């Protein structure tokens, strides 16, 4: 069994009068030393899936309606709230997109790192400080001995994200979930932060789930990729396998939408329409209204997940038959 196994996860959010499904039949796994990328456009359910694993969903608004989340052989959804709190930030931790809003502006960063540590490890004050310094050094904060006393606003965006990573790694998590960790950063800084995460993985063997809308970031960083559209994983494979053989029209459309950096074209091959709103009920394949290969069957029947080759899964009636 892999370190993390998500099985048929279903999440619903409270709508006007009923619960609306936002994530459906979502299954994937990540093991030690592995990086899984989850890619998709806004509203496809990628962040909610991450929050569900972490146990951060606001129960009155969002509900896990079905499924199992196995971490190290234990189903997280069967655990008591207290047990989950003990795991959160210890065995698994999370990095968020906005490094400015995820840090407390009125505390020094050293104190914030120690605060996270204090939840899970018993040490003397001096030991806490030593560990905090060690973490700041590990994430390459320049002048970390002085910086430990800085407030978040005194750091650059990239440095703040490094501090977030330091906090997330303070208890040597087995699983690290990074939700758009570099989206708010400049490209040159983005590379440093991604490289830092991978470097830590090489040293500690942490499993990483990287959530991103950026195919380039995913291609460069991940071993495996899952593409989500409207709450479902519509295609998943090893990164090399996916880019060598794209099987779902949505994945192809997403790739075609990105302007090429190394060549020039007159027009982009854009996917028509937009991601449907949650309230819009759709039968069959959720992508069919925007798909140029759509057949009557696509509007009627939900395509099952077909397994093609080794570890390549795709939800499309015509997988493998289309010239994408």
């Amino acid at each position, binding site marked *: 069994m892999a370190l993390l196994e998500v099985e048929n996860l279903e999440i619903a959010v409270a709508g006007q009068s009923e619960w609306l499904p936002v994530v459906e039949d979502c299954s994937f796994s990540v093991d030690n030393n592995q990086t899984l990328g989850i890619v998709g456009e806004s509203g496809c359910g990628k962040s909610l899936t991450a929050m569900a694993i972490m146990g951060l969903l606001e129960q009155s608004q969002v509900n896990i309606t079905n499924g199992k989340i196995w971490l190290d052989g234990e189903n997280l959804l069967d655990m008591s709230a207290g047990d989950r709190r003990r795991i959160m930030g210890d065995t698994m931790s999370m990095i968020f997109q906005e490094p400015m809003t995820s840090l407390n502006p009125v505390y020094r960063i050293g104190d914030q790192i120690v605060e996270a540590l204090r939840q899970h490890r018993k040490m003397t004050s001096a030991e806490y400080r030593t560990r905090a310094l060690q973490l700041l050094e590990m994430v390459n904060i320049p002048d970390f001995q002085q910086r430990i006393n800085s407030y978040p606003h005194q750091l650059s965006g990239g440095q703040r994200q490094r501090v977030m990573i330091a906090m997330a790694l303070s208890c040597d998590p087995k699983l690290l979930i990074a939700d758009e960790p570099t989206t708010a950063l400049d490209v040159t800084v983005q*590379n440093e932060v991604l490289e830092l995460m991978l470097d830590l993985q090489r040293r500690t063997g942490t499993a990483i789930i990287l959530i991103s809308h950026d195919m380039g970031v995913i291609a460069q960083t991940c071993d495996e990729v899952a593409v989500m559209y409207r709450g479902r994983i519509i295609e998943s494979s090893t990164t090399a396998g996916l880019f060598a053989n794209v099987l779902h029209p949505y994945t192809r459309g997403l790739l075609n939408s990105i302007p090429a*950096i*190394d060549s020039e074209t007159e027009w982009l091959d854009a996917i028509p329409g937009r991601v449907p709103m949650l309230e819009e009920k759709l039968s069959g394949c959720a992508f069919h209204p925007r798909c140029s290969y759509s057949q009557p069957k696509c509007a009627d029947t939900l395509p099952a997940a077909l397994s093609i080759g080794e570890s390549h899964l795709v939800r499309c009636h015509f997988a493998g038959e289309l010239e994408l």
Partner: protein
Amino acid sequence: MSEPLLDVQGLKVYFSNPATRLFSAHDAIKAVDGVSFQIAPGEVLSLVGESGCGKTTVGRVLTRLEKATAGRVSFSGHDMLDMSQHEFRPLRRHIQMIFQDPFASLNPRLTIEQTLQEPLMIHKLAHNRAEARRLVVDMLEKVGMGADVLGRFPHEFSGGQRQRIGIARAMIVKPQLIIADEPVSALDVSIQAQVLNLLKRLQAESGVAMLFISHDLAVVRHISNRIAVMHEGRIVELAQKTRLFEQPEHDYTQRLLKAIPRIPTSLGA
């Protein structure tokens, strides 16, 4: 190059540094520090760079939202920076802006018709309501929207549709120059592609010149004729786009190009 539409020479914008102590010499933050470029009629020039490089400040000076510290900007022969607000008003029609955030740049209390009618009325491009409505409907059609949206409010639209409305608002007065500051960076990739295609088509059809400000090099390569790379308030390299990407000369440009994560090419787009 033919007579430039916009000629920017030695533009400097300094801000006073709030962190400077009371009695020490004031050191200014040099947001823009001697920037010069020209845009020909109908040309698309991009300003590209990382956050804090000064690209947005340049755009804000050109729309007179920010005051220049030094330098000269001439727009179709008029020296823009020395003008009074009153003298500048007739030029304003010809320099329009498209903003980054489609959620913040439309007045939530105006219907789409009112939003698009307002510039027509201010610049006296329509003489009566019927004429204004006809122009508004024509423009909406050009951005891929129907007359059914006239009475609706911005909150009823998605980000991509709002950006189309923002583009319509800038284009409806038939300007000579559009300053587009990160117009697609808030949009999802599939919507971004649609809006980029739209911008490119409208630009080609109308022959409007454009200053396209962005941090995204792939987007910039797609839309521009020429590209200026900014770093720490200066333009470090300015070239035709193909040349810039294939033979970047400046260190910083090379570093920037190398930093972009590539999608494996085996998938051949």
